[in-house]
């Protein structure tokens, strides 16, 4: 096996991993702040993909450009979902909260899937731009333009989120709420507003991931669960409470899958993630970046 083949697979692993990373950071943000596991996160991603597809198929808008519409639309959808559904769950405490969050979001994922089936039918869809299939070649490695853009957009999204959380007053309020919501309330932070904004941001990140997925894979209304599960594996690997730690772990998982497909065989691609998952849980249950 040539070094180019390995390098090529490694690079493709990074491209795929950047999508895992963005999907996982959205889920991780909502989980870390609201302490709610949103099983419908994958469906939000799927809807992001369909909005991009629709804008492309009907209005001929470039998928990357259409993020200017998709991302705010998903943010709004997230805000509405928090306001009408998740607000009633976040008010609960302890076991009731986690159980209800699972039930409610699982129900929501079924509803969203069926709404999309009604609107778009269950056929596979994909976004083929004029530049799909073209790309650069460097050192014998092919770098398709769409994949490069995916990586760049993923990095920009995560760095913007990082800057927002670290530098702005609102971002700090979100981090404070994630650490201790009662102490945050005593500092004068409106917890409901933080939850609303955070759920919107989580959905917006799902929207970004959805767009990226729609230009690299075909989408159907049923892809959501697979993405939720993958995002869940990534955030557990990263360690819960490490919101942005999910991104490098997503990249890592993408690369690990790609390399195992190269060295062991494509059939083991999905398996390797779960094996890593198992070993991390056994040896380092707090996650790769978790603090004990």
């Amino acid at each position, binding site marked *: 096996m040539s070094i180019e083949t390995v390098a090529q697979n490694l690079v493709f692993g990074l491209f795929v991993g950047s999508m895992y990373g963005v999907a996982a950071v959205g889920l991780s943000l909502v989980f870390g702040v609201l302490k709610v596991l949103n099983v419908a996160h994958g469906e939000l991603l799927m809807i992001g993909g369909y909005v991009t597809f629709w804008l492309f198929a009907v209005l001929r808008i470039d998928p990357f450009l259409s993020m200017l519409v998709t991302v705010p639309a998903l943010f709004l959808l997230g805000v509405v979902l928090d306001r009408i559904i998740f607000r009633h769950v976040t008010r609960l405490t302890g076991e009731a909260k986690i159980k209800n969050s699972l039930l409610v979001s699982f129900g929501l994922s079924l509803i969203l899937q069926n709404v999309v089936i009604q609107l778009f039918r269950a056929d596979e869809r994909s976004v083929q731009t004029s530049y799909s299939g073209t790309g650069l070649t460097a050192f014998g490695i092919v770098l398709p333009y769409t994949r490069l853009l995916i990586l760049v957009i993923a990095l920009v999204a995560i760095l913007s989120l990082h800057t927002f959380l670290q530098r702005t007053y609102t971002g700090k309020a979100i981090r404070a709420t994630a650490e201790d919501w*009662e102490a945050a309330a005593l500092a004068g932070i409106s917890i409901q507003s933080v939850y609303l904004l955070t759920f919107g941001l989580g959905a917006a990140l799902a929207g970004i991931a959805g767009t990226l997925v729609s230009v690299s894979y075909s989408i159907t209304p049923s892809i959501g669960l697979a993405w939720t599960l993958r995002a869940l594996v990534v955030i557990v690997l990263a360690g819960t409470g490490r919101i942005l730690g999910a991104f490098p772990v997503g990249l890592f998982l993408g690369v690990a899958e790609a390399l195992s497909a190269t060295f062991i065989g494509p059939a083991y691609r999905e398996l390797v993630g779960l094996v890593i998952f198992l070993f991390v849980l056994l040896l380092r249950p707090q996650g790769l970046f978790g603090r004990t």
Partner: protein
Amino acid sequence: MLEVRELAAAYGDLRVLWDISLEVHTGEIVVLIGPNGSGKTTFLRTVAGLHRPLSGDIRLEQTPIHTLPAHQIVERGIILVPEGRRLFGGMSVLENLELGAFTARARVKRHEMLKRVLDLFPILSERLHQRAATLSGGQQQMVAIGRALMGLPRLLMLDEPSLGLAPLVVQNIFEVVRDIGREGVTVLLVEQNARVALQLADRAYIVEQGRIVDQGTGAHLLADQHVRRAYLGYAPRAGTTTDRSASLRE
């Protein structure tokens, strides 16, 4: 300033407060003492809006506040330093202090307040960029009080600020509380360390099993037989279990 009437509170089926009525006047330092589990913490949490009362009402300058969410109570100037400090451990000391000034009212004055907090606790100037979780207990308590002051309290409520701290540090914390009181901030203090707290207090209430059983000036309660026996560790005859547990707490 603060007027509480016939306040009752519970956790699920477990009744914690029965019929608490008390008043805090502007400029006073008022102390609540009582044994563990008597409902002092629940009382402060209820005033701060973290816990909804079963019945009764809480008024700030005649306006009822017990239906407001916690952040709006902070906006009105009632700020709680919670039991156990509850810092944002993963964030820096500076970020913790900045977050104390989150309300619009406090944010405009955050630079001058930060200077004042660092004057009160000079040691924190050297620790501003350290993660709050890495500080010692005493320094964490300073950050917790500092964070509350950043919110420009009119009524500052402190829940067991001396808990788990070395005697010298406790002394320092209480001196600061006294200074804060002298600068015109009204203080409502819950404290296990009854002797020190009563010396500081203008007035005090004794809470036992969710009810107010006695009240008076700090000096009056310091001289009271029951208070001396139960909370100050003076027993006419050593030996009863309540006396022993009270002196252990001392």
